């Protein structure tokens, strides 16, 4: 992950013996121009502090820690899965990754089980403090090739919403007065299976919609 930076033969004063690796190159392509521009704008005090902290060499080394050996931006500690960073905001059209693709039964089942567990645990409330959905997405992302990660994640999110809606509908059907936050008999959800929900979905653009019009709007 880390890269050794030493010597002065590359012309920037922070030259690496590993300048040919992707981690270095991407960090350089992405950041160096901005760093140089920033250096030009520094006040003498800022410049002094900058140099005391190791200057450009140390700076680039720190920035490069957010990249992996393939040159993907992965953030501090690798919190971003390669393929999930879309570069400068707005630079990539969302439609390139907000697409429906095939997602494995295993991944969909994991998501379904998580939605069900959280629906019961939180009595139908969507609690962002306790949810494990990020973990499900990350596991999925790491299980597929980089090119499919963002698209598959989008697809999985579409399923997730439909699973939750089906569970809500089931509890409501059993007790029309029920509201999220009120307890309910969790065995109501025994009749809601991933297969039963998915069999009623059809793709519409980059989303899923229900085949039959069950909801009165």
């Amino acid at each position, binding site marked *: 992950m880390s890269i050794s930076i030493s010597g002065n033969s590359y012309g920037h004063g922070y030259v690496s013996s590993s300048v040919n690796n992707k981690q270095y190159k991407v960090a350089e392509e992405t950041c160096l121009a901005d760093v140089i521009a*920033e250096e030009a704008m520094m006040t003498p005090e800022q410049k002094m502090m900058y140099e005391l902290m190791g200057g450009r060499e140390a700076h680039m080394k720190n920035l490069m820690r957010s990249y992996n050996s393939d040159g993907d931006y992965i*953030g501090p500690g690798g919190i971003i899965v390669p393929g999930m960073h879309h570069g*400068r905001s707005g630079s990539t059209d969302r439609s390139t990754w907000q697409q429906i693709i095939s997602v494995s039964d295993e991944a969909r089942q994991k998501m379904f089980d998580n939605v069900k567990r959280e629906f019961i645990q939180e009595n139908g409330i969507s609690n962002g403090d306790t949810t494990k959905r990020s973990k499900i997405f990350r596991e999925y992302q790491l299980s597929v090739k980089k090119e499919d990660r963002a698209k598959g994640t989008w697809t999985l999110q579409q399923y997730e919403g439909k699973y939750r809606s089906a569970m809500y509908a089931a509890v409501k059907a059993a007790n029309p007065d029920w509201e999220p936050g009120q307890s309910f008999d969790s065995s109501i959800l025994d009749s809601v299976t991933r297969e039963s929900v998915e069999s009623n979905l059809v793709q519409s653009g980059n989303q899923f919609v229900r085949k039959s019009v069950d909801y009165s709007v």
Partner: protein
Amino acid sequence: MKRKLSLLLVVTLLCTLFVTPVSAAEAANYTEDQAVVTATSGSNYFSKITPKLNSLNGSAAMAKLSSGSCSGNERSITSVTVNCRVSSGSSRFYLTVVSPSGNSATILAGTNSTTYTFSDFIGEDPKGEWYVIVESLGAVTTVTATLKVNYNYFY
């Protein structure tokens, strides 16, 4: 006799409505095709503030923010903004936001306190953990960021 029957019927109905918990027997009757639920929709938002983020010489400073409870079953983000209050003497910086699904994008942020808009998360479900990352382009950057996420929802 008629009165007694009526009374019994009323008591039974009241039990069904207010006393008896939702039963599994009722659930057994549920099928996807039979569920009829009146859809309700609306819009909502959450706003969370990071602690002071100090990035020294390009090292990353990161804060984790939770959406808290979100309305609705199906949600769709309509906008994500990050208001950055930048301490004086700070250098420009990279501002990166990571959504709960793991999508992320970066903006090159200036030294003035400004609100930045990320269009990359539109359509996503906002529920869960968000990350705000600051990476200084100079010696030091100190920022307090407020993440605001607007979304539509429906039941």
